[in-house]
């Protein structure tokens, strides 16, 4: 095969993959700009006069803006806490020997082996017992449970790749353990920390199961509200799609902004 036809095939493959992954987004965004009649038309209409009516409607709805605020509160707090708690733990795991280290490490990893739905009922009952249902705190706690291992996992790997000599040079110069962590490990671990923050952010932002189970009215998050339109006899597809677009937008922008770190982080350790 010549180089040119190989490149052509390559491009074709990319095109297929791209349309496959991007089409649902296109469909969501374009549907959010259609009126109900155009939405339900069969065969679907490709050319239509876009309208912002759906957006006007969802933003007028207190429920949607409240949900987005809830989501922001829960997700930002979770991500912030996951990074604040996860990075020192990762430093300890990366650089110190202590009893039970292997067990702790395995526990962190095995946390991610459990399917979340298995725990949904016990967690619900627990939250009910301690009166935490329908609070921001319960969502933050449960998301933290899922996100901390990811942060610790990625950051441990990142911190391990920082040469030990740096830490020892700093120790000789009189830096204490915390200074070493703050002035050497944190700045040099930025790629890993950024990636784990993104993962944490996206996971919490998209999470539906626990948000659905653990909230009532007060702290419904954005994905819950989006699905809540699906009750009743009529499906307001325009509003659902508009809400979906609004939900996806922040993560997309966030991910685009930090995508360079993301690629660097995902391939880190590859050359070890």
């Amino acid at each position: 095969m010549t180089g040119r036809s190989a490149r052509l095939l390559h491009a074709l493959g990319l095109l297929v993959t791209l349309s496959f992954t991007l089409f649902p987004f296109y469909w969501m965004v374009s549907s959010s700009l259609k009126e109900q009649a155009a939405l339900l038309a069969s065969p679907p209409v490709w050319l239509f006069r876009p309208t912002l009516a759906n957006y006007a409607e969802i933003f007028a709805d207190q429920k949607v803006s409240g949900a987005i605020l809830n989501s922001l509160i829960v997700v930002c707090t979770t991500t912030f806490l996951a990074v604040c708690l996860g990075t020192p733990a990762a430093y300890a795991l990366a650089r110190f020997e202590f009893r039970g280290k292997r067990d702790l490490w395995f526990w962190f990893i095995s946390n991610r082996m459990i399917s979340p739905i298995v725990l949904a009922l016990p967690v619900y009952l627990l939250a009910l017992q301690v009166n935490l249902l329908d609070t921001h705190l319960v969502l933050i706690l449960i998301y933290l449970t899922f996100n901390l291992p990811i942060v610790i996992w990625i950051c441990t790997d990142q911190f391990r790749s920082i040469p030990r000599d740096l830490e020892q040079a700093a120790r000789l110069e009189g830096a204490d353990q915390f200074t070493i962590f703050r002035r050497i490990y944190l700045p040099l671990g930025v790629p890993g920390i950024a990636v784990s923050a993104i993962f944490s952010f996206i996971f919490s932002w998209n999470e539906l199961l626990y948000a659905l189970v653990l909230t009532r009215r007060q702290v419904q998050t954005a994905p819950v509200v989006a699905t809540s339109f699906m009750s009743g006899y009529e499906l307001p597809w325009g509003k659902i799609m508009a809400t979906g677009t609004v939900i996806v937008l922040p993560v997309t922008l966030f991910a685009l902004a930090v995508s360079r770190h993301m690629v660097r982080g995902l391939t880190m350790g590859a050359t070890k």
Partner: protein
Amino acid sequence: MAFLSLDGIVKRYGDHTVVDGVGFRAEKGEFIVFVGPSGCGKSTLLRMIAGLEEITAGTLAIDGREVTHVEPAARQVAMVFQSYALYPHMSVFENMAFGLQMAKMPADEIRRRVEEAAAILQIGPLLQRKPRQLSGGQRQRVAIGRAIVRHPKLFLFDEPLSNLDAELRTQMRIEIARLHQKLGVTMVYVTHDQIEAMTLADRIVVLRAGRIEQVGTPSELYDAPVNTFVAGFIGSPRMNFLPATVAEAAEDRLTLTHPSFVDGRLVAAPRRGGARVGARGGARVGDRVTVGLRPEHLALDGAAPSLRLRAEMTENLGGSTQIYARPADGEALSILTPGRPAVAAGDELPVRVAPEQIYLFDGAGLAI
């Protein structure tokens, strides 16, 4: 009172002994070089002095104070790492200022000290750069600068030049020697390169497998190595070794036999500067000994040859020539001779060595 003293220092990892009872003393201002083959425990020893490794047994004192289990920072030592260990996210200035900040020094004093060190090392224009924007030699200077600014009591170097190319290595070697003269501070320097050891050291500590083989000035080690290990390690090109038998033992003269000696015999006299000059008499007729011949002591001389060898290969070094030549049996010997003698492979070479330039070792490899 010695400035730096090590007593019975031991390091074990599990039941693997890496440093096995090292003891020696250094005076204030001395330049000490630890030299030995890779894996002999040099770095471990240095890192124990720095406090980066726990000392399993023994005592360590710096400037009259016992510091065996003292925190590294409290020992007032500075170390230059083989990897340089510069903080990649900090500028050269910040790298050099870090330790002073840790000591809570005022900002203007920090600036003054960093600029002073930068001037000594000629890295003033680089202060705002990041380590990745520096060449290997410049990084090396920054690493040294970072050590200087703290005005430590003791400088430790762990193979600081091994990542540089040959030309830079020579240049930095001279600069380190100059720095030592200028600062007059005690330095301990680790290397596996015997040329660095010979050129830099006031005294050399030769290590093998976690033990000290010999301590002495470069000349002492060159003139009077205590065993074949030190003899082979110090000096370049390496000393040649040849087995022989004692045929006659006079008061201060031994006659040795080996098939490649002219007439089968070679006379060895006490060496100038040899540590055990008088002990030669200890050898008895019939003893198996090892003869050590330094390549630079062998001369091509048809008039009064002591050995007959067959030339195998020559290397033209420009001003001198290194010839590899084989005795009647055994391994090739190297000969370092000035100029460019016309020698072709297969030629029979008459080689002369002065009787007082012959090193002798007994069956166990210890100097006679």
